[in-house]
């Protein structure tokens, strides 16, 4: 029993980190048809920037927000300079974000070197909780809490604000939305910026779980895409459900079938694709 609770909690914590990456991925794709391969590089960049600030004595939370803001600024710069023109051209935008990944990865390697950095959680959450024989880091719960809060903010923004209405209208029918006077371009900027911000923010927050090292982004990319496939491309609710599913499958797969743990994630993903290509919550492709 303890085994299951332990892995379930770890899986949920990891899954809620994946949500921070996949939410941007799915929204950017749903709105702009851009497959942003650099989304996990944003996460890694946020982690390194945050880590540097923390070693300079910054507060952990402030540093992770700063990491997110810097990443967002970079994302916006790239978006407005290059990507913006290609929002209706999935191939070119994909190729550009691929190039961005190469440049960011090597830039990160140049600036921070190749050594892995473990990241300590803030001191109040550094301990463990124990119930009988069950022991797990408090920080897991913190990460789950933060991700759900961010998810709630995103949902409320999409469902309850004017901006959210505009974004949803543009997702449903961009041309019609433009015709009705919705400033679709602004929605594009907002969504791209939000995606980069949340991923960058997640970098330091997730640091105590994933740590930070070159190549981490490459490891996270397939998982983030698995989330988007399972949940359905363009669906925020799908991204949340998909993140938790993938997080749990990942944790139990690693614990139960260590030799086949990649198999246990990607075979269900391939099966979902084969029998329900639009994902669990997505609309038809």
């Amino acid at each position: 029993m303890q085994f299951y609770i332990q892995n379930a909690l770890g899986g949920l914590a990891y899954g809620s980190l994946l949500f921070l990456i996949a939410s941007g991925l799915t929204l950017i794709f749903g709105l702009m048809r851009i497959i942003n391969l650099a989304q996990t590089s944003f996460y890694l960049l946020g982690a390194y920037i945050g880590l540097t600030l923390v070693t300079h004595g910054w507060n952990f939370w402030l540093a992770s927000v700063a990491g997110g803001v810097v990443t967002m600024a970079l994302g916006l710069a790239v978006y407005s300079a290059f990507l913006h023109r290609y929002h209706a051209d999935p191939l070119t935008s994909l190729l550009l974000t691929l190039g961005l990944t190469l440049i960011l990865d090597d830039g990160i390697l140049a600036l921070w070197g190749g050594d892995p950095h473990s990241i300590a959680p803030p001191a109040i959450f550094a301990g463990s909780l124990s119930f009988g024989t069950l022991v797990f880091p408090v920080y897991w719960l913190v990460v789950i809490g933060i991700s759900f809060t961010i998810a709630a903010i995103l949902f409320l923004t999409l469902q309850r604000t004017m901006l959210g209405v505009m974004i949803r209208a543009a997702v449903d029918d961009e041309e019609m939305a433009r015709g009705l006077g919705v400033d679709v371009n602004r929605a594009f900027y907002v969504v791209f910026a939000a995606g980069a911000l949340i991923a960058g923010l997640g970098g330091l927050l997730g640091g105590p779980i994933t740590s930070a090292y070159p190549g981490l982004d490459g490891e996270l990319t397939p998982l983030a895409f698995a989330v988007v496939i399972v949940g359905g491309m363009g669906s925020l609710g799908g991204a949340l459900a998909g993140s938790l599913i993938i997080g749990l499958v990942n944790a139990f797969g690693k614990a139960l079938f260590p030799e086949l743990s990649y198999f246990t994630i990607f075979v269900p993903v391939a099966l979902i694709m084969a029998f329900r290509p639009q994902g669990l919550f997505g609309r038809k492709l």
Partner: protein
Amino acid sequence: MSARRRWVMTIVAGAAVALLLPHLGVPTFFVSLLTQTWIIAIAAMSLDLLIGFVGLVNFSQAALFGVGAYAVAIGATRFHITGFASGMVCGIIAAVVTAALFGLVALRAEGPGFIIITIALNQIVWGLAYQWVSVSGGDNGITGIVRPPLGSIDLSSNTAYYYVCLAAFALTLAVLMTVVRSPYGLVLKGVRDTPRRMRALGYNVWFYRYSALLLSSVFAGTAGVLFAWYNQFVGPVDLSLDQSTQFLIVTILGGLGTIYGQLFGALVVIFLSNELSSITQRWMLVLGVIYFAIVLYAPGGLVVLVPRLWDRLRGKRIAIVPAERP
């Protein structure tokens, strides 16, 4: 000089240089890099068939390539499949079977959906190679793959193997160029540009996509086998997503929808990564920037960019017909 003669001259000159090169006293390191170039070019050409002519951006090309490599490696080290032809057939069959399975899943989606599924599919195969240690050797890969002789010709020397790969490259080029110019190739282009119209005309779009995927896997598998013999080693990195990315970059740099352009893409990537890495540690950055600039400003790739720059250098202004872009 007519365009056609210019072409013939270029091909003849290129072939002559390629054939003579190992005898011109160039360092063996150079010959070895060129051998690698031929192999990567074969894989990239197979990818160009899919992206440039069918519009399928396949991120699992490295899986097809790597499965071919692993098949010949496992065949040679476990099952005594040590002949040239038998090894090659073994690798190609493995790649085709993998592609046949992948196609059943991935071709249920189109466009971006296809891209994302193939990322997942590639990851499945990578995961197997990385973690199924008892079969694949895990992270350590499989060593001790011996290059088989071709008939009575010993291939253990770099020069001999260079010619084998060059021949394989020339054969692939000839076959794929013929295919894309055939009526079948025209249908592929139609499927790429207007699948709905082709469907209305009575073409089975799925069949054309599936068959192109299988055809592509034949050459991806060939490249994989040649690569396994070249390195005499296979590891999970050979079928990683990074390897798929490299094929994609080579294909884009060379010029989508050209087939022959991938040779130039492969030359640039292989030589740049080797030359630059001796000058600077930041060669990935340089390559990334070049790639980014090509995607932005010369989407036709090097085969469009270089002649244009050449003509401009000579003060000529020739109207360049932009390369087709899917």
